[in-house]
């Protein structure tokens, strides 16, 4: 049967097909198709967000289409507390990303095709309730990134594209092995997450098996969400990817890693997770502090944003590592707000580069004088990044701080060091790029964002950041609903006792 969730896949697919037929000379028509499809998805996402009935905690708007009978694989999509906000995030980021596409001239049709494919992959990964299709859409996202970066990128884009795709595929390979294990090892062989989850709740796998599977998931999703030794491939990819691409990749592909860890790690392999999590919490300290210092040393704006997003993923992972629904809810809130934030920052980096030709921080200066709107948006984004209250990041980080303190008392210092480092390099960026006297060379650059039409993405992203910042219960309630199956909540408490040693 078909329900609302199917249209998230159908709309991009239809517009992809339509766009393929349009000859590449009609750039205008191609752009309108892309616009219609992303605004339709945005409207649908907001509609789903409102219509989601908060009482029942299982999947809603379920749509199911059978694809192969014998190993019984069917396209099974659903929306629940955990992925509803991530879908809203994808729709917002993909809608805002279109603004950054207008600077693409070289065979724009190919670019728009790949852009829609990337959005399709993102929607599919979050919506799919079937193991196989989760992997399939993840694979699409990983593979689409290669042509996107290597053909329309900048800097040494060939190397960046190759290493970005290699890591993404390596990660999805580990995830695939984990998924195969999840499909074959438990007694009932089903690809449906709901039945699998219920089955694993009732009779979980043996601890040894859970350990092996969890290891695969941890490595796979860890690579995707930029855990410490794999923190560099993301930023390299984003700094040489076209802005729309890096917005989606940084904003969404990174969150798939954490989303996967929640879905498969915490919900399906709770016993193994309970034992792995304290070590993960220790391990992620590197992410928070080491990558934070790397970001501090960055001279170029895009690298700065990339590395800061890698170090902010540390918040998400340590939220998960608390293994309580409080920590996970905080992690999901940070995922949502961080996605919006990264998209906003990359959009502004695009404007700076389009007008100034470079994003080297020391070549810029005093832009606020001619660019009041862009300067305000960048400072708001920087404030949100350094978790100033009033923004969604602060609410998420607050919940995470309390959750982490509840589990690993003194590890919170690492989290706070990261917050302090973010404040330092973000405010330094504001000071060096926008404040200070204007350089004589760019006296006359006028404001890149003048018409209201161009301001819409900024207002949308900042609006959502403020909305959730002022009343975070909107999102936290949904996360709590989604996490009811995280039955090992008391294990989280019990976990506290044996982690006293930390």
């Amino acid at each position, binding site marked *: 049967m078909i329900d609302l969730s199917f249209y998230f896949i159908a709309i991009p697919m239809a517009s992809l097909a339509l766009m393929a037929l349009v000859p590449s000379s009609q750039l205008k028509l191609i752009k309108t198709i892309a616009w219609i499809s992303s605004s339709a998805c945005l409207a649908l996402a907001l509609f789903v967000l409102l219509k989601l009935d908060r009482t029942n905690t299982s999947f809603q708007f379920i749509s199911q289409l059978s694809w192969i009978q014998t190993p019984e694989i069917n396209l099974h999509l659903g929306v629940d507390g955990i992925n509803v906000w991530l879908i809203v995030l994808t729709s917002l980021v993909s809608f805002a990303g279109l603004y950054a596409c207008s600077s693409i001239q070289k065979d724009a049709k190919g670019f728009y095709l790949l852009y829609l494919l990337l959005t399709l992959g993102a929607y599919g990964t979050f919506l799919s309730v079937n193991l196989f299709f989760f992997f399939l859409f993840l694979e699409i996202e990983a593979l689409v990134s*290669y042509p996107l970066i290597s053909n329309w990128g900048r800097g040494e884009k060939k190397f960046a594209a190759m290493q970005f795709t290699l890591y993404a595929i390596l990660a999805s390979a580990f995830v695939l092995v984990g998924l195969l294990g999840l499909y074959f090892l438990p007694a009932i062989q089903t690809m449906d997450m709901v039945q699998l989850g219920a089955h694993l709740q009732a009779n979980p796998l043996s601890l040894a098996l859970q350990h092996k599977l969890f290891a695969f998931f941890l490595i796979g999703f860890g690579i995707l969400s930029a855990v410490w030794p794999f923190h560099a491939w993301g930023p390299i990819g984003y700094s040489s990817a076209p802005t729309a691409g890096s917005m989606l990749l940084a904003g969404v592909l990174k969150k798939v890693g954490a989303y996967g860890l929640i879905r498969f790690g915490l919900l399906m392999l709770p016993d193994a997770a309970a034992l792995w999590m304290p070590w993960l919490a220790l391990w992620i300290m590197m992410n928070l502090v080491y990558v934070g210092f790397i970001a501090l040393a960055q001279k170029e704006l895009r690298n700065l944003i990339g590395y800061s997003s890698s170090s902010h993923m540390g918040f998400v992972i340590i939220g998960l590592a608390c293994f309580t629904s409080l920590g996970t809810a905080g992690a999901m809130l940070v995922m949502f707000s961080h996605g919006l934030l990264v998209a906003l920052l990359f959009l502004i980096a695009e404007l700076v580069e389009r007008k100034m030709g470079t994003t080297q921080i020391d070549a810029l200066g005093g832009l606020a004088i001619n660019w009041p709107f862009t300067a305000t948006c960048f400072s708001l984004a920087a404030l949100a990044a350094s978790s100033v209250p009033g923004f969604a990041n602060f609410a998420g980080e607050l919940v995470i701080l309390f959750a982490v303190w509840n589990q690993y008392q003194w590890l919170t210092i690492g989290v706070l060091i990261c917050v302090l480092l973010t404040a330092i390099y973000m405010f330094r960026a504001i000071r060096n790029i926008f404040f200070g006297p204007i350089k004589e060379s760019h006296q006359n650059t006028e404001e890149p964002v003048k018409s209201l039409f161009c301001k819409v993405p900024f207002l949308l992203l900042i609006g959502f950041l403020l909305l959730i910042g002022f009343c975070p219960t909107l999102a936290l309630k949904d996360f709590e609903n989604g996490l009811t199956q995280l039955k090992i909540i008391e294990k989280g408490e019990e976990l506290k006792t044996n982690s006293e040693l930390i």
Partner: protein
Amino acid sequence: MFLMITEIFLIATLFIVLFSDLLLSKNKRSLLGILTALGFLLALVAQIFFWNESGSLFEGMYVQDEFSKLAKVLFLIIGFFLSLMIRTYATKLVGGQGEFYLLLIAAIIGMSFGVSSTNLLLIFIGLEIITFSSYIMTSYLKHARASIEAGIKYLIFGAISTAFGLLGMSLIYGGSASLDILTIKNALLSSGSDQTLLIVGFLFIFISLTFKMAIVPFQVWAPDVYEGSPTPVTAFFSIASKTAAITIFLRIFYEIFLPIQNQISIIFAVIIAATLVYANFAAIPQKNIKRLFGFSSMSHAGFILMGFLASDAIGVGFVLFYLFSLIATNLAAFFVLSLLANHSENDRVIEYEGLKEKSPMLATCLFVSLLSLTGIPPTSGFVAKLLVLYSAVNEGFLWLAVIGIFMAILSAYYYLSIVGKMFLEKPKDTSPINIPLSTQISLYLTVGFVVILGVVPGPFIHLCQQAATSLF
């Protein structure tokens, strides 16, 4: 009478083509190609028309069941497209074109006999017909030194593999005093004591068949012969002789040696792992595209052998589906290759740069077939690899599946580097390539088939599984 309908039609086309070759004048040689293609088409229609005819002839030596009918349909499709491919490749053939078609038809007749026979002798005859016609086809380009060299290598290793096959069959005959599959099976079940003769015999037959499949141990010949022989013949090797060998081995393995499958599976697993690792790592630094396709067909053969680990009709169905998808993908790829072979002499990969500017149609078709070869979602290759990996993991060979996955990723590197060259590089000369009508139609058909199999594989898998039930 109607049980051998395919063979009858094929023999008829053989004679028609033979005589028309004598009568027609030099310049109307291309008509022969159309004639052969028509012949195959007619045979295909007849076979489908008599689909529900099944039974056995010559006191059970020749049987026509679901499995053999599906296999024959496959062979006829291959024959039809290969004859069109030879026709477009004709400009390169200095010698008479006619013989080429005859050899092709003879090979297909040999395959259909091999697949329907339940007697080891008849299987051996079928295999030998295929091998003999391939000997001549490989060295068809008399003037090209590489073609002759390929022919000789193929001859030497073909002879060794036939020797192994004969030795195996004689040992089985020794062990079970009969050449008929059913009696051998009963001998295997009842004899209890000395199964050694039967097992060793089976092993020899398997090793001789690996020659055609280009799997370890007989995989060394593939790259050189693929590079040397003319492009349609390379297509023939990578599709026709591989499918024949696999379908015949399916019949032998599942009809006789199913009881001892769990020990043999371990051997299969080791061989598969060796083939995959060898093929994919060797393919990376390849410069010549046909040599690259040699290694790729080796790797696909490895994946198909994974299907043999399954012990039920569903698993065998996956092997047949993989064959379907492999045929469609390789046909599409080789059509593009054979067309481009006319424009470049040594088939180097670099010549494919900027193909998109030269002819977007060829570029997109090769792009789709490369996607399917790598196993990227919307194409049939992905579904096929998925099903085969599923059956490997289902039988408990998780480590093999992991190796398979990593080798597939590695294969992504050399396939997509071609795609990269085609789309992202600038071509040297931007003269557009004209595509004859027949190639266009066949390209549309094959690429369409690849995409349909990828998007809606359900019914095809069901069809293959139906056919596979007749083996058990």
